[in-house]
């Protein structure tokens, strides 16, 4: 399958297979007007399969979130057809409005307009907890 080469843009690579669409929604790529390609189940030397997102523009993205999805994801910035940087996003300290607290006793379950916010409480085990009730994110 052929996808056009990016001149200026972002390639998010090594996304766990099957999670590309989820990431597309989290990053709100549907709100962009530039070309965006989702490649699913691309062959991967390390994992067998992977997903890739290609965005044909260098834009501000909430890249912190990628670290939460998977620390092996890479973010490649392309300028003038050349890769100018390749990074593994760090685990974000806080995740807002993405994961939802499932605890029925949490105030977020009663007050629907409250933003769901999770904080990183254990970086080694990648544990996030709801700031309101301390329930662990699943």
């Amino acid at each position, binding site marked *: 399958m052929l996808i056009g080469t990016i001149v200026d843009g972002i390639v998010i690579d090594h996304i766990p297979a099957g999670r590309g669409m989820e990431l597309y929604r989290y990053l709100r790529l549907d709100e962009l007007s530039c070309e965006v390609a989702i490649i699913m189940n691309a062959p991967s030397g390390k994992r067998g399969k992977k997903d890739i997102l290609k965005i044909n523009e260098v834009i501000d993205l909430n890249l912190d979130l990628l670290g939460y999805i998977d620390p092996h994801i890479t973010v490649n910035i392309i300028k003038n057809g050349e890769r100018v940087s390749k990074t593994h996003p760090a685990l974000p300290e806080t995740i807002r409005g993405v994961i939802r607290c499932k605890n029925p*006793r949490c*105030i977020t*379950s009663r*007050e629907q*307009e*409250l933003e769901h916010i999770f904080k990183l409480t254990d970086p080694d085990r990648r544990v996030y907890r709801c*700031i*309101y*009730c301390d329930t662990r994110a699943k």
Partner: protein
Amino acid sequence: MRSLIDIADLSVEEIDDLIAKAEDIIADPDKYAEKCRRKKLATLFYEPSTRTRLSFESAMIELGGSVIGFSEAQSSSASKGESVADTARVVSCFADIIAMRHPMEGAPLVAAMNASIPVINAGDGGHNHPTQTLTDLLTIKREKGRLGNMTVGCCGDLKFGRTVHSLLGAMSRYEGVDFVLISPEELKVPEHVRTDILKASGVKYRETESLQEAMRSLDVLYMTRVQRERFISEADYVRLKDTYILTPDKLTDAKPDLSILHPLPRVNEISVAIDRDPRACYFRQVLNGKYIRMALIMKLLEVE
């Protein structure tokens, strides 16, 4: 402007300062009688709690301040659907400090994020109850003369018992504290308490189902009630509620200077016959609650 939502919001030094202040209030209450004159405490109690509410109110009155508020959700705008955030903003216009009890976990944090005055968490569901923990710490300090180098037994509902979770967190920051966790299998401490508090702090602890077996090693015995309101199944509550009942014969092996604490209210887990034993501290503990809340109110209002 600071709030107190979780006991972990306070450093060990701040807790020690609060305890020292409370002890000074106990020694000379007249010195503090006008410290909060013209200040108002709003007690926003969305669920009933006689003891905590009266403790906060009497604390503010003894500091020369006054009290406004409500004692159940039905008599507040919550019954009309007002959010906690809006209530906190509105009450900020009338009062100088808020004490909030709410059945939903995290509600006092939401209030603190939206109020322009300090908020004290007076209990949010089964989650946090930091002023109870301060009360417990003051009581242990006054009874034992120290907060480290002791064996503390926690007995009863260690799963839903938020007072136990907070006490474990607070006491594990002091040197030489060992815990004995006494509960039936179904009411053992939850995983997050075990990993985030006990294992993270490296404190020594062991778990047992036998109060009798643990008794001889304890310096402090913290009894808890199996709380009906925390159970979804009535059958589970009935099955577990009488698991541990402290009677005089169970104290046979106890140390002569054991301190028995209980956050109250008790149902039947401590026999009234124990009340006459000098080792029973739970009514002195209630009184300590008022003094530590006085110290806390002063701290958050930045009153010297």
